C-alpha cells in the first residue's frame, strides 16, 4: 500500500520532472506578454480558419488581440467537424504560430548530402535550385521518378504540381501507416471506403465497439464528442484493448485481449451472431452476398476456441455479442483509424466490416450513415500529362488491394538495390516527418541518401529536414489560404481557411511555393491564376457563395441530395462486383487472397521481451506538436507504462529512466521514464507516440522521452495493401544505457 507521500512523488514525475529545465526556457512571463486582460470577443477581430494541427481539420475562428496577435482560436459553431469546440491541439494553435523554433528562412544544404549544415538563402535562390534539380532529375530519369511524400492540406498544392509535371507517385504515410487497410477492408465489403471523418452515427448509436481504438486519447474531435454524447444517452461501449485505455474506462465491457488475436475474437462474435440466430436476417438476405460461405467458414470459431487465443472468457464474448445484437442496427463496430498492425490488417478490418453487416448497421440510423459532400469544380486548367508509369506499376503486382500510392513501396523504389522495375530518384517531402511517421528508420535513411535530391516543405525543423537538400519554410495554417474544405458529413459543408495574420519571418504559403516551382518549370498553363484568392472566389461562386461571404461565415452548409440512411427494405446497389455487401469478397478471391478473414497466429514476445504497444496522447498530434509551447506544457515527454508485476520482476521504480532495446538489437537513443501502472498488460509495455525527437532545433521536444518509431524495425506488411504493420515489435527494458558498441552490434 502506497502512502500519500509516494503519490506526491509520482505526481512530481507525472508533471514531467521539468523543474530543472523550465527556468531555462525563455518564456518565463506570459505567452502573450503584452496582454494583461482577457480578450473581449465582441471587440476582437476574427477570421475564419481551418485547423491544421491534425487531419480532422475543424473549422474555427482566430481571434486577435489589440496588437494584432492571434490570442485564441474558437471552434465555428455550425461546423460539423468541431461543433464549435476545438480539441486541446486546436485550442493550442497559437502555440504553433508563435513557436520560436519554427523554420524561418529557406535553407540550402552546404556541402555533401547527409551533413546537417545549411545556409539561409533567399526564396529566389531556393526555388531556382528546386526547379533546376527537378528538371535535371526529370530529364535524366523521367519526371515519374520524383516522388511526393506528403500529408495534410498543403499536400493538395503539391499533388497538383506533380500531376502538372507528370508524376503520379504520391503517397501519404497516413494511408500505408494508418488507414489504408481499413479502407481496403470496407471497399472490399461495401464497395465504399470509410473516409474521414468516419461516418459513424454515434449520436444515435446504442452500442459502440472499439477494437483497439483509443478514442479520447486520439482526439478525433467529432468522434470524441459523439462518443461523449452517446455515453450521456446510455450507449453501451465495448472496448477491446490490451491496455486499460481511457475509452476502456468509459466502457461497460472492457475485453483485455491478448495482443494480435483480434481476428479470433471477431470470428467468434460472428459465430455467436450466426449460430445463435442473432444477426439481421432481412438485411443479410436483401443486401449481402456469401452468407452461407461465411456461416460455414465461422463454424469452428466458437467463443471457447477464441478463449484459447484471446484470453477472453467465452461468456464475455457471448455477453458482448448479445449486447451488440440487442442494439442492432444502432450499433457501430468502429473501423478504427490507425489499422496497420500485424500484416493481416485488411482481413481484420474486413472482419469488422462483416460484423457490421451481420448487425445490419451499414446505412442505418445509429450505425453508419451515408456521408455526402458538395462537389466544387476545379479551377479550369489543361489536362495533366499522362505519366509513363505510376505507383500502380510497382505496387499492384504484389499488393493488389492497394488503392493509392504506398509510402513504403515508394521508399523501396528509392533504395539503391531496389528490385522494383521502376526507380525513384528524388523526393518532395511535404508536411510529414518521414523519420517518425514511417517504420524502419534505417531503411528510410538509406533511401534518403540514395536520392539525387530531397526538398522538404514544412513549418518546423523536424528530423526529416536534416536530410533535405533544400528546406522550404511554409507558413502555418494561421498565416495562409488553402483550398476549400469540402466536408463529407451528414450535411455537406464548405469551409474556408484564410490568413489571420501575415506570414511571419520569411515563410510562404504552400500554394505559392508550388506555383512558383511550377512557373519555373514552365508549367504556367496549369497555374492560370494570380493568387489563390482568385481560385477560391471562382470556386465558391460555382456553388452560389463567394470568398466575401465565406470570409464572414467561415462555414457554409448545403442541402443533401440523397437520404442519410437506408429505408427499411429499400433497394440499394453496392459498388461491388455482386452489387451486394460482400461477406465473401469476390475481389479478394480473384486477387488470390482469403475471401473471408482467417485467423493466423502472430509471433509473441520471448522471455524478457514485451510487446511494444504505442498510441496517442490527446494533447499532441504525433510528433508534430511536441514543440508547441502551449501543448508542450501539457505533456513534454512520454512515459513507458509497465505493469506492476513486471516492475517488481525487473525492480523498476516509477520515474526511473530506462532504455529500450528491441528484438533486432536497436537501442532507444534517449531514456524514458517508467510509469508503473495497472493500466497495461503484463506481456506488453505502452509508449505514447511522438516523443523522443532528435532534431536539436526543436528546443522543447529534443530528447524528451523515447521514440516508439525508433523501436519499430520489424514491419509486417499487409499482404493486400502493402501497409506497414508495426505492432509486432518486442522490447526489453534496460536500466542502464548500453555501451555504444553493443548498441551497434
Amino acid at each position, binding site marked *: 500500500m502506497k502512502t500519500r507521500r509516494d503519490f506526491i512523488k509520482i505526481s512530481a514525475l507525472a508533471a514531467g520532472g521539468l523543474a530543472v529545465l523550465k527556468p531555462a526556457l525563455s518564456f518565463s512571463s506570459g*505567452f502573450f506578454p503584452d496582454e494583461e486582460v482577457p480578450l473581449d470577443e465582441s471587440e476582437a477581430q476574427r477570421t475564419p480558419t481551418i485547423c491544421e494541427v491534425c487531419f480532422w481539420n475543424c473549422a474555427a475562428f482566430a481571434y486577435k488581440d489589440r496588437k494584432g496577435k492571434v*490570442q*485564441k482560436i*474558437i471552434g465555428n459553431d455550425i461546423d460539423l467537424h468541431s461543433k464549435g469546440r476545438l480539441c*486541446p491541439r486546436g485550442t493550442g494553435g497559437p502555440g504553433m504560430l508563435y513557436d520560436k523554433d519554427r523554420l524561418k528562412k529557406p535553407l540550402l544544404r552546404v556541402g555533401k548530402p547527409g551533413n546537417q549544415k545549411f545556409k539561409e538563402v533567399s526564396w529566389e535562390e531556393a526555388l531556382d535550385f528546386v526547379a533546376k534539380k527537378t528538371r535535371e532529375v526529370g530529364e535524366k530519369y523521367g519526371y515519374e521518378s520524383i516522388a511526393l511524400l506528403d500529408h495534410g492540406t498543403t499536400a493538395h498544392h503539391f499533388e497538383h504540381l506533380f500531376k502538372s509535371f507528370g508524376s503520379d507517385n504520391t503517397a501519404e504515410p497516413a494511408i500505408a501507416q494508418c488507414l489504408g487497410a481499413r479502407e481496403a477492408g470496407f471497399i472490399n465489403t461495401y464497395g465504399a471506403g470509410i473516409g474521414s471523418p468516419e461516418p459513424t452515427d454515434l449520436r444515435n448509436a446504442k452500442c459502440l465497439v472499439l477494437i483497439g481504438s483509443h478514442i479520447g486519447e486520439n482526439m478525433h474531435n467529432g468522434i470524441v464528442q459523439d462518443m461523449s454524447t452517446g455515453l450521456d444517452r446510455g450507449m453501451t461501449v465495448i472496448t477491446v484493448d490490451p491496455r486499460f485505455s481511457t475509452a476502456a*474506462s468509459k466502457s461497460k465491457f472492457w475485453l483485455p485481449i491478448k495482443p494480435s488475436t483480434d481476428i479470433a475474437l471477431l470470428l467468434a462474435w460472428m459465430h455467436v451472431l450466426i449460430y445463435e440466430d442473432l444477426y439481421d436476417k432481412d438485411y443479410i438476405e436483401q443486401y449481402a452476398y456469401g452468407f452461407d460461405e461465411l456461416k460455414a467458414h465461422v463454424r469452428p470459431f466458437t467463443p471457447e476456441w477464441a478463449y484459447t487465443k484471446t484470453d477472453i472468457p467465452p461468456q464475455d464474448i457471448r455477453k458482448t455479442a448479445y449486447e451488440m445484437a440487442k442494439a442492432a442496427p444502432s450499433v457501430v463496430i468502429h473501423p478504427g483509424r490507425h489499422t496497420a498492425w500485424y500484416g493481416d490488417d485488411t482481413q481484420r478490418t474486413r472482419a469488422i466490416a462483416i460484423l457490421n453487416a451481420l448487425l445490419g448497421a451499414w446505412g442505418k440510423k445509429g450505425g453508419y450513415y451515408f456521408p455526402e459532400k458538395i462537389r466544387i469544380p476545379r479551377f479550369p486548367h489543361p489536362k495533366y500529362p499522362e505519366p509513363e508509369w505510376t505507383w500502380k506499376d510497382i505496387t499492384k503486382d504484389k499488393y493488389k488491394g492497394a488503392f493509392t500510392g504506398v509510402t513504403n513501396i515508394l521508399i523501396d523504389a528509392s533504395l539503391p538495390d531496389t528490385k522494383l522495375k521502376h526507380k525513384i530518384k528524388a523526393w518532395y517531402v511535404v508536411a510529414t516527418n518521414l523519420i517518425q511517421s514511417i517504420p524502419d528508420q534505417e531503411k528510410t535513411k538509406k533511401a534518403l541518401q540514395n536520392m539525387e535530391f530531397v526538398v522538404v516543405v514544412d513549418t518546423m525543423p523536424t528530423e526529416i529536414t536534416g536530410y533535405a537538400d533544400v528546406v522550404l519554410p511554409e507558413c502555418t495554417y494561421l498565416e495562409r489560404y488553402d483550398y476549400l474544405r469540402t466536408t463529407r458529413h451528414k450535411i455537406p459543408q464548405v469551409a474556408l481557411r484564410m490568413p489571420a495574420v501575415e506570414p511571419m519571418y520569411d515563410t510562404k504559403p504552400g500554394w505559392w511555393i508550388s506555383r512558383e516551382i511550377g512557373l519555373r518549370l514552365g508549367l504556367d498553363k496549369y497555374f492560370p491564376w494570380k493568387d489563390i484568392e482568385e481560385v477560391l472566389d471562382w470556386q465558391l461562386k460555382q456553388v452560389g457563395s463567394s470568398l466575401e461571404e465565406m470570409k464572414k461565415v467561415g462555414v457554409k452548409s448545403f442541402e443533401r441530395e440523397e437520404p442519410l440512411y437506408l429505408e427499411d427494405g429499400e433497394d440499394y446497389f453496392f459498388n461491388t462486383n455482386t452489387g451486394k455487401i460482400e461477406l465473401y469478397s469476390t475481389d479478394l478471391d480473384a486477387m488470390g487472397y482469403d475471401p473471408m478473414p482467417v485467423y493466423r497466429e502472430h509471433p509473441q514476445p520471448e522471455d524478457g521481451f514485451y510487446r511494444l504497444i504505442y498510441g496517442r496522447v490527446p494533447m499532441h498530434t504525433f510528433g508534430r506538436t511536441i514543440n508547441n509551447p502551449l501543448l508542450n506544457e501539457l505533456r513534454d515527454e512520454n512515459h513507458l507504462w509497465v505493469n506492476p508485476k513486471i516492475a517488481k520482476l525487473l525492480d523498476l521504480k516509477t520515474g526511473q529512466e530506462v532504455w529500450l532495446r528491441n528484438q533486432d538489437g536497436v537501442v532507444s537513443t534517449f531514456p524514458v521514464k517508467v510509469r508503473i501502472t495497472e493500466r497495461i498488460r503484463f506481456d506488453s509495455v505502452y509508449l505514447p507516440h511522438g516523443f523522443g525527437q532528435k532534431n536539436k532545433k526543436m528546443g522543447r521536444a529534443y530528447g524528451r522521452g523515447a521514440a516508439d518509431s525508433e523501436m519499430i524495425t520489424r514491419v509486417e506488411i499487409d499482404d493486400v495493401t502493402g501497409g506497414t504493420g508495426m505492432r509486432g515489435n518486442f522490447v526489453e527494458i534496460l536500466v542502464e544505457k548500453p555501451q555504444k558498441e553493443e548498441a551497434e552490434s
Partner: protein
Amino acid sequence: MRYAMAMDTKKCVGCGDCVVACQTENNVPLGYARDWIVEKVEGTYPSLNLELRSERCNHCENTPCVRTCPTGASHVIEGGIVKVTHDECIGCGACIQACPYEARYFHPDGYVDKCTFCDHRTSKGQDTACVAVCPTHSLTFGDLDDENSPISKLLRNRKWKTLAPEAGTKPNVYFLI
C-alpha cells in the same frame, strides 16, 4: 446567485483542452496553470477503475484564502467567485498556504493569481472558457440558486463528490461520479 461548476468524471477523457483554453483566454503565463487534470487509477489488472478530473479553484463557500489575506486583495465577488485584486496583493503567500487545493500560485509579476471562473465572461452570461471548449461536455457552469439551471438539475440527478470536504471549505466545484 451562487455560481458553481459540475465536472463529469465519467465523460472526461483528460485531454487538457480546458487547460489550454484557460491559458489562451486568460493569458496565463507558460509554466503556470489555473486548471489541471488529475488521473486516479484503482484496482488490479483487469479489474480497474479510472477517474479523470479537471480541477481548478473550488470557489469555496468557506474561503480560508480570503480570510487569511492581510490586505483584502483576496475577496469574494457576486456569485461567490473568489478573486484577487492584483495591486492590493503583497505576495505574502498566505492564501497559497491556506488553499487545500493548491489552486493558487505566484504570477511571475509577483501577485497571486488563480481561476476567476472567467468572471469577464460569466458576468455576461457566457460559459467559462474551459466549459465552452470542453469537447466531451464534461463541464457545466451555472447558478445553484436557480433550481432549474442545468447544473442544479445535474446535481440533483447524479451522484457527486467534492474534493477534500474534510477541509471544511464547502467547495463549489462538484465532481459527478
